[in-house]
């Protein structure tokens, strides 16, 4: 039997959580959590290093019977698309631990346990090849996230956590119905690959498409089911925001890629104009909302809606550039927005204010902080040379190929992002140092640098040399396209 690398990656954080429960001192808890998440990242890197980029086949697969009576197996495996997100999840994992180092000062052990369980479940979602296993991880994620927001969040945490829970649960119930329908139509199996090979009638595809759409759209989130996001982000502690923005939002888009497109290709093609229109709406509307914010964290949160619109637009352009751009943009958004939330957290730890108006002139007192903030702000607005520009260029190129009007709307969104991000940076970093007069400000310390620098590296690496990242997804994306268009062309 092959070495169960994926199981190790998925269960290592859970094991870490188990170890944490036996510890007493807060510092021991922090260091142990860090060690486990760093080890997990090392395993994910090893996985990527051994990853064969020439094939779209699932790799590192593991299959064990679980409930054979109803066709449930414990099956893990990754293709190019999921491998990239396993890596992203592991990357943000230890950064979340670092971001919580001093920000979380009560019930540290419980917090870290939730965080590590969360990570295990997220990795499970990306690795699962069994629909039942996928669904279990997908649903179970709600619990630690609910706790992270509801227990360690800001003043409005209970409301925000409840809203988050309700929205995602409502979406998930439709997903469950979809799963059951798939199970009976697809020969009573939960094997994702077997289900993908099925040829479902168009009517069934359409119904399933809408069931999945609602479930995934809530996660992405797409307008108009986005309203949980600003509350959840703003109330969540920094680590919660990083995970929400960095990984959780990607799960909706991952759902489209893993289920909607390959399993329901005719419906995906048929409804793609609708999806493109919804994406354009999210891009522009999210941008306008971000423009109106005077709360730093809300601004970043709303910008996520706009940027995730680019992702769904790329996916439903249903061409090579669009899809590769969309997936690359998922990764980029994880890195960049994760970093921005980290930065919001850092400044909040110093000022206990999130109001942009309180921050003016930060460059004078915290030059390193503002220099890196500039990098991530520019990355978020997709300046040429940064990671997001490569993704944006691909998405727009694919979007224009699919529909000129939708492409034009997306360009408007890009303009909006420049407006709110540059405006934010100017108000926060430049001008007279009013922030130093009100609060005690210190520049970033070594621990904080350790969290920032890796993210900065990815901003420039993907921006100037995205090839290794595109190589990972390339074969899988091309295969996905043939799945969509061959079946559709077969009609």
């Amino acid at each position, binding site marked *: 039997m092959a070495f169960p690398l994926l199981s190790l990656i998925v269960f290592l954080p859970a094991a870490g959580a188990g170890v944490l429960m036996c510890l007493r001192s807060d510092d021991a808890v922090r260091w142990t959590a860090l060690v486990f998440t760093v080890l997990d990242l090392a395993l994910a890197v090893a996985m990527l290093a051994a990853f064969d980029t020439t094939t779209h086949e699932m790799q590192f697969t593991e299959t064990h019977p679980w409930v054979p009576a109803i066709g449930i197996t414990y099956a893990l495996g990754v293709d190019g698309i999921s491998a990239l997100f396993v890596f992203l999840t592991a990357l943000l994992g230890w950064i979340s631990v670092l971001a919580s180092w001093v920000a979380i000062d009560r019930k540290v052990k419980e917090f870290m346990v939730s965080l590590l369980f969360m990570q295990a479940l997220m990795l499970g979602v990306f690795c699962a090849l069994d629909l039942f296993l996928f669904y279990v991880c997908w649903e179970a994620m709600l619990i630690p996230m609910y706790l992270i927001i509801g227990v360690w969040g800001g003043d409005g945490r209970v409301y925000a956590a409840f809203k988050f829970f309700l929205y995602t649960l409502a979406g998930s119930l439709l997903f469950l119905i979809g799963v059951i329908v798939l199970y009976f139509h697809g020969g009573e199996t939960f094997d994702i690959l077997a289900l993908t090979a099925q040829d479902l009638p168009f009517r069934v595809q359409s119904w399933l498409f809408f069931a999945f759409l609602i479930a995934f759209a809530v996660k992405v989130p797409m307008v108009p089911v986005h309203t949980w996001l600003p509350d959840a982000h703003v109330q969540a502690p920094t680590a919660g925001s990083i995970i929400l923005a960095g990984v959780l939002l990607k799960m909706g888009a991952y759902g489209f890629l893993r289920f909607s497109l390959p399993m329901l290709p005719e419906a995906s093609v048929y409804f793609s104009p609708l999806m493109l229109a919804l994406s354009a709406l999210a891009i522009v509307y999210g941008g306008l909302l971000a423009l109106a914010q005077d709360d730093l964290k809300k601004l970043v949160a709303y910008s996520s809606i706009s940027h995730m619109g680019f992702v769904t637009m790329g996916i439903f352009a249903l061409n090579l*550039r669009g899809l590769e751009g969309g997936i690359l943009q998922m990764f980029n958004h994880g890195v960049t927005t994760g970093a921005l939330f980290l930065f919001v957290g850092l400044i909040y730890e110093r000022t206990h204010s999130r109001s942009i108006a309180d921050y003016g002139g930060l460059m004078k007192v915290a030059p390193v902080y503002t220099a890196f903030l500039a990098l991530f702000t520019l990355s978020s607005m997709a300046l040429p*040379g940064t990671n997001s520009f490569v993704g944006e260029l691909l998405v727009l190129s*694919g979007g224009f190929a699919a529909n000129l009007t939708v492409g034009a709307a997306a*360009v408007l969104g890009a303009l909006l992002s420049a407006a709110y991000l*540059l405006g934010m940076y100017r108000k926060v970093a430049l001008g007279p140092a009013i922030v130093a007069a009100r609060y005690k400000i210190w520049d970033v310390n070594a621990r904080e640098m350790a969290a920032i620098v890796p993210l900065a590296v990815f901003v420039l690496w993907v921006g*100037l040399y995205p090839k290794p990242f595109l190589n990972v997804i390339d074969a899988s994306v091309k295969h996905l396209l043939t799945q969509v268009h061959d079946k559709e062309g077969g009609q």
Partner: protein
Amino acid sequence: MDPVISIRPLLAVAVAGLAALAVLLLNKREKLRDVVSPLAAVVMFAIVASMAPTVLSGGTVALRLFEILPGIDFAFRVDALGMVFATVSSLLWIVAAIYSIGYMRHLKEHAQTRFFACFATSLAAAVGGAFAANLFTLVIFYEVLSLVTYPLVYHHEDEAGWAGSRKYLVYLMGASKSVLLAALALTYHISGSLDFVPGGLLAKANASAALLTAVYFCYLFGFAKAAVMPMHAWLPAAMVAPTPVSALLHAVAVVKMGVFCVLRVVFHVFGTGLMSGLGLGIATAYLVSFTILMASIYALTRDDLKARLAYSTVSQLSYVVLGAVLLSPVAMVGGIIHIAAHAFSKITLFFCAGSIYCASGKRNISDMAGIGRRLPWTMGAFFVASLSMIGVPPTAGFVSKWYLTLGSVQAGEIAFLIVLLASSVLNAAYFLPVSYVAFFGGEGSEGLSRVREIPLVTVPLVATAILSVLMGIFPGYFLALAEGVVR
């Protein structure tokens, strides 16, 4: 001819980049810090010049670093057009670096380290753009240039500085994050590449005329640094910057980057064949003619010397574009060499404005009566550069205007001949009164008795005035390059 593979294009960029780093590291040691920029400028010019023989003989120097996306590389290719821009920028950096030291020291400006670091980085970006082999590489340097000049514009950190720099960034970033982004994505969608191709990347493109026309205008307005109206308003706003910035960056590096990009699009993305086939040349010519005349009229009404110079720049930039879009070989040559001619003369004029400000604190032309008697070298240089702006022989401006007028006749477009002549009259109308007032204006405005030339400021401006005349007498180098582009 196969391109010569060489690391020199990268070296030229790296020199300025490293200079910026050195300036930052030498923050506390002012004397040593101030030596870095002129030294780096000389080295950079030498590297650029070392590639000139290859380019003049019709070759190119290339360096491909790595692939970004299929069809898009991060790569340099030094050709004749890039050589014009790079020569002008690196040569004038030497002079401007010395001038900046004199200016900043004399006025005891704050944040000099930031100033010199950003200044050096701007040059790295300008030369990087000049040597870029494709739109992707070009746009990276284009945006870096926007960003690093931003702190130079808000340098004084007063209300005017914040307001001016805000407008600066809104225009430049707004244009590039909207129409330019759309143009790039559409070009990549249509052709699957962003490379500069002699004869035009899109020349054989399979796309509708309407779409190509839209893409073209997205480029024209997207490259807002070219300041084609209505995308010009950032340039007068940028005049809140210290004068060396206005001189080298907002008369040479930044604005020339704009027109350089437009020329790249005309020659190497669309190509002259497609331009005339779609009727884009003539449409653009009318558009920029409007800019030429309107900006000159604005300039007439400005009493602030730097503002007058800024509007004059807006007008003169459109000369470059006009020459290119007339699409006749002679006019194209005229447009290309006007990049150099305007650079030498306009930098002189800005240097003079800075010299006057350093020596007397005066900005408004109406306050400068009689100042020529106190600052004879400065105002003498100003007069020479004015003549070049108007296009009087034997100055540089005469050569480029000669080619432009001849070219518009060759293209059979008499309307633009009239535009050029009318504009020359306007140039005379807003430049000559400055010299007149300075030399023959009423006896002594008050407080001029202690005004005298500042050597470190005056020497560079005399040098650039001489350059303006030299280029008028020996235009061979730039003509040869320009003919290399048109060929």
